[in-house]
């Protein structure tokens, strides 16, 4: 899976190089009510799209996981009290699972940011340095 991400990043780089001219055009064009797309410089727009794609599932998972668990605590108290090992019940196991889930989400975020998003940012910065295009 990571290999696909790498390829995607490399494609972005070629995209960026190809778009260097487009960026300066975009900046020179006055932003009016009807002439507003692309919203940001195309390279940044790609980065934002990637962020939305990676972060949305993460946010949904931890929010549903945690708020769902508090809802279970309120509405399914019998289920939460079902014993699993000795006196340890499903509720405490799910709470422990939620600790682990939060840390997994954090590590997934770090991994995504380090391996996929940071290289995209570096490409954009390098591109701006090369073309001298303003932000």
């Amino acid at each position: 899976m990571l290999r696909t991400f790498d390829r995607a990043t490399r494609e972005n780089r070629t995209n960026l190089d190809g778009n260097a001219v487009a960026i300066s055009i975009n900046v020179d064009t006055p932003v009016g009510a009807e002439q507003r797309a692309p919203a940001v410089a195309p390279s940044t727009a790609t980065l934002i799209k990637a962020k939305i794609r990676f972060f949305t599932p993460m946010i949904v998972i931890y929010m549903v996981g945690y708020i769902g668990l508090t809802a279970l605590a309120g509405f399914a108290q019998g289920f939460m009290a079902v014993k699993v090992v000795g006196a340890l019940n499903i509720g405490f196991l799910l709470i422990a699972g939620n600790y682990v889930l939060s840390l997994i989400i954090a590590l997934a975020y770090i991994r995504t940011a380090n391996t996929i998003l940071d290289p995209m940012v570096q490409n954009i910065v390098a591109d701006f340095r090369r073309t001298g295009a303003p932000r």
Partner: protein
Amino acid sequence: MSVTLGIFGGIMAVTLGITYWAARRTRTTSEFYAADSRLTAAQNGFALAGDWCSAAAFLGFSGLTALYGMDGAFYALGPLVAFCTVLILVAEPLRNTGKFTLGDVILDRMQKPTALLAAIAGTVVVNFAYLMPQMAGAGVLVKLLTGVPYELAVVLVGAAMIVYVAFGGMLATTWVQIVKAILMLAAAAIILMLVLAAVRFDPLMLFQRAEARYGPQFLSPGNYLKNPFDQISLGLGYVLGLAGLPHVMTRFYTVPDAKTARRSVVWVMFLAGSFFAATTLFGLAGADFVGQDAIRAADRGGNLTLPLLAQYLGGGAGSWGGDIMLGFVSAVAVATILAVVSGLTLSTSTAIAHDFYVNWIKGGHVEGRQEVWIARVSSVIIGVLAVALGILAQGVNVAVLVILAIGIAASANFPVLILSLFWRRFNTAGVVSGIVVGLVSSVVLAMMGPAVQGADAVWPLVNPTIVSMPLGFIGAILGALLAGRDAENESRFDGFSHRLHIGAAAE
């Protein structure tokens, strides 16, 4: 008690030494407000842990678990999950857009003094709602632990906090928080080892014994928060409110770049997460070894569970080991309060000096050295005010203020911050209406609820967030839409968004 004072004297000597060292390195605004943005991820991670784990976390979570079982474990879980929101949505954007404060971000985005004023209101109200119960808690706790009278305890805590912040700025505050975090984790590690040794390294035994003594209902949910919607509302307040707390936001300006900001969040998640998880075991162990009756006899809210458990594990009351353990945990509890109130005082005085005086009144035209002087003076004023409010709060039920701080952070600051960061059409009118609606709805709902009105309150929920947070978002969005489009503001969003995602490197 003499052990507590001895250990606490040691902590004071170390932190005042740090302040002396930091004061010599604090001359510019960037040094005073943000430790010159030169902290490492690990340093900021420890400082975040010291900033975020208040006495309510250090003492309260164990106590709630000891008295109410599973609901206490829920209280401890939320503050960790909340860092997912901070990590994914706000840590890096804050680092990339602001300079020192929430007000900076809003001003950078909107370029309007009115928007800045709304952000200042959100910052100051939340910080004071958080600071006042901390001061009151300090008075109660120091009195309980050392026998010093309430008023004197508040004054002493306030004096130490003013010295740290006014002289040492962010650098001293940071290191006070780091020292506190290390002490807190060390205390937790020692207690955890002793607890596990007492049950022959079988944590399941803690559950077994708690059930045998207090029945299966003790390990089921619903013993503390009876209304299911209150449980959810509390959870939402934590998960979104942390990202709206100004004193937590400020910590992301103490690191050089977005990468360090994100790594510091992972540090705090592992540090604070392991501590929060341990409090659940401490609570069960306290209920078993110390007993609920003895815990309630010492403090009705259960706040002395951890010191009493430490005393038991050290060999019991009157024993040499028991005295040392009780003294150590009590001293760490006081250090915990000091670290949190220092962070809050610094954050509030930054909002007053930097946002209000320099940027709002003077339009940014204040020379750097003069601004640092103003910031030092404002930290003294904020500190004195906090002491006065803390003394006035004696005997008053301050629990509602904690609920308010989290509720307003989640319902006013969080929606306005998120929409400012990510929504092109968001504007000054939206900032103002979002802050006003979020603030007013949190306050009104909390005042109508059982925390103030008692059991026969019209409004059934203690925690307002489940209603006030959506209202805050709706208020912010409606305000922005009703004000009409602002082409100049929207066109500036491109540059802002670029900085937000790329960082200062591209400037």
